[in-house]
């Protein structure tokens, strides 16, 4: 009897705390009302979708690209927010993302459903976020083969690919994964145009 009462109060406090925390968290959000109406259940929206196990393979501190400017890992938000596998529905975050990458590609085509710090393979396993080439090689396998030998993309260091000291830049260092087409650049200055008439291309 006493036991049950205690458990009842504890569940009540937990419930209240959950409500409070969720409210304080959502209060700052623009779309609080829509979220509250969607998630009336006692569980937090993120509770079911967060995977607290470390990413398979080794995980280094995230090196996110300059354009995204995130200084925190994905799971810190997504422990609370559920993921909608719909590229059109975005509430406050990721509204600046323009997904222009192939046909019928959504968020969860590449990002893992439960562990947001990881990418996903074809059969649902996790890829650490510091190895994006494994993710990209799911579709771009021919490019990946060229990349492994250094024939695709930028390389730095020494020219001898057999030894150490050379490094091929990974996919996301050059391509924006959400819009991977190479950006248009302003050309630098060319040779000065000679003053007298000159037969172009004659050499």
């Amino acid at each position, binding site marked *: 009897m006493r036991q049950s009462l205690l458990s009842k109060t504890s569940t009540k406090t937990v419930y209240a705390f959950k409500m409070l925390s969720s409210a304080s968290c959502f209060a700052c959000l623009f779309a609080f009302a829509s979220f509250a109406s969607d998630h009336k259940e006692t569980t937090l929206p993120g509770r079911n979708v967060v995977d607290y196990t470390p990413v398979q393979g080794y995980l280094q501190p995230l090196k996110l690209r300059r354009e995204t400017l995130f200084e925190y890992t994905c799971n810190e938000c997504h422990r609370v927010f559920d993921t909608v596998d719909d590229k059109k529905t975005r509430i406050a975050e990721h509204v600046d993302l323009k997904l222009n990458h192939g046909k019928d590609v959504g968020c969860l085509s590449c990002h893992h459903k439960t562990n947001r710090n990881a990418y996903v393979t074809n059969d649902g396993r996790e890829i650490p976020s510091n190895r994006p080439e494994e993710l990209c090689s799911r579709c771009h396998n021919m490019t990946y083969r*060229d990349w492994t*030998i*250094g*024939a*695709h*993309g*930028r*390389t*730095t*260091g*020494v*020219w*001898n*690919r*057999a030894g150490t*000291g*050379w490094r091929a*830049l990974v996919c996301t260092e*050059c391509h924006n994964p959400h819009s991977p087409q*190479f950006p*248009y*650049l*302003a*050309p*630098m*200055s*060319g*040779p*000065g*145009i000679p003053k007298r008439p000159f037969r*172009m*291309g*004659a*050499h």
Partner: protein
Amino acid sequence: MSDKNTENTAGAGATPPEKDVAAGKRETFKPLTRRSFMKASALGALLIGGTTTAMLPLRKFKSDTSLEDFFQQHYDLLTTERMERILARIEKEVKDRYGVDADVQDPKPIPDVQFAYALNISRCVGCRRCVHACVEENNQSRDPEIQYIRVLEMPEGTLDVEKSNHYYEPDKVPVKGKYYLPVQCQQCDNPACVKACPVGATWKDKDGIVVIDYDWCIGCRYCEAACPYWARRFNFSEPKIPKEQINPEMAYLGNRIRKKGVMEKCTFCLGRTRKGLMPKCAEACPAGARQFGNLLDPDSVIRHILREKRVYVLKEDVGTRPKFYYWFDK
């Protein structure tokens, strides 16, 4: 009689000679007057000034080339210690002229290496980043501007370089309907420029790089005319480089600062590549279109591209056998 008389008179003249001589001496030794002093000093000043003016070109010549430089032997005949003296002399010249502490070296070819270049023209966007990375690395003259790499803007559907334009200046590249073909020294296996040189100032080194000895070049520009790729450049005037933009790591056959009146060209950045590094243009390319490697190594990236990709060389029909391969994968 008269003879006698004259003799007598002469004798008579001879008898009182001391008096006359003394008088003559007194007349020739004029005291220093203001007029004579001014005359003499004006003449002296004219002489000194004239000589100095006449010798001025000689002084300039002396500062331009040292005795060592004048009597320098051909590169093949240089001993190691003589080469060291030459390198020290070049360092001193750079210090005197530009005020930069340069490190001039003479890296030798690595055995069992043939350098080759592969350029993916379906990736090149024509942004000319390579051109300017090359200018900075190789201490090319900024005024008049010398660029080793020329990026040709080509209409799609042709490989005819006659239809190209290398003065393109659009706001953004790549332009639709165009593709870009960067041309630099092709480091030919059968180089026409080497055959054209009358003095042996340019030759193909053991690692396949065609080099120029700038101290041996006489500036006749025959090689420039012989090259089918227009890869060679001539220093019409003394190169002007801002002091802070000078690359202090120089190579004797590579990127040391050239003189007026000598040829220069791309050397695959031999100061870098003979130490194992990549050429500067390959590192600078933002599109990753440029690959560099060893042609003799079967596992190298160059051999991978030659095996797997569609490769062509520029102006194959002229028989120069370039080691600069263009390929495409789209």
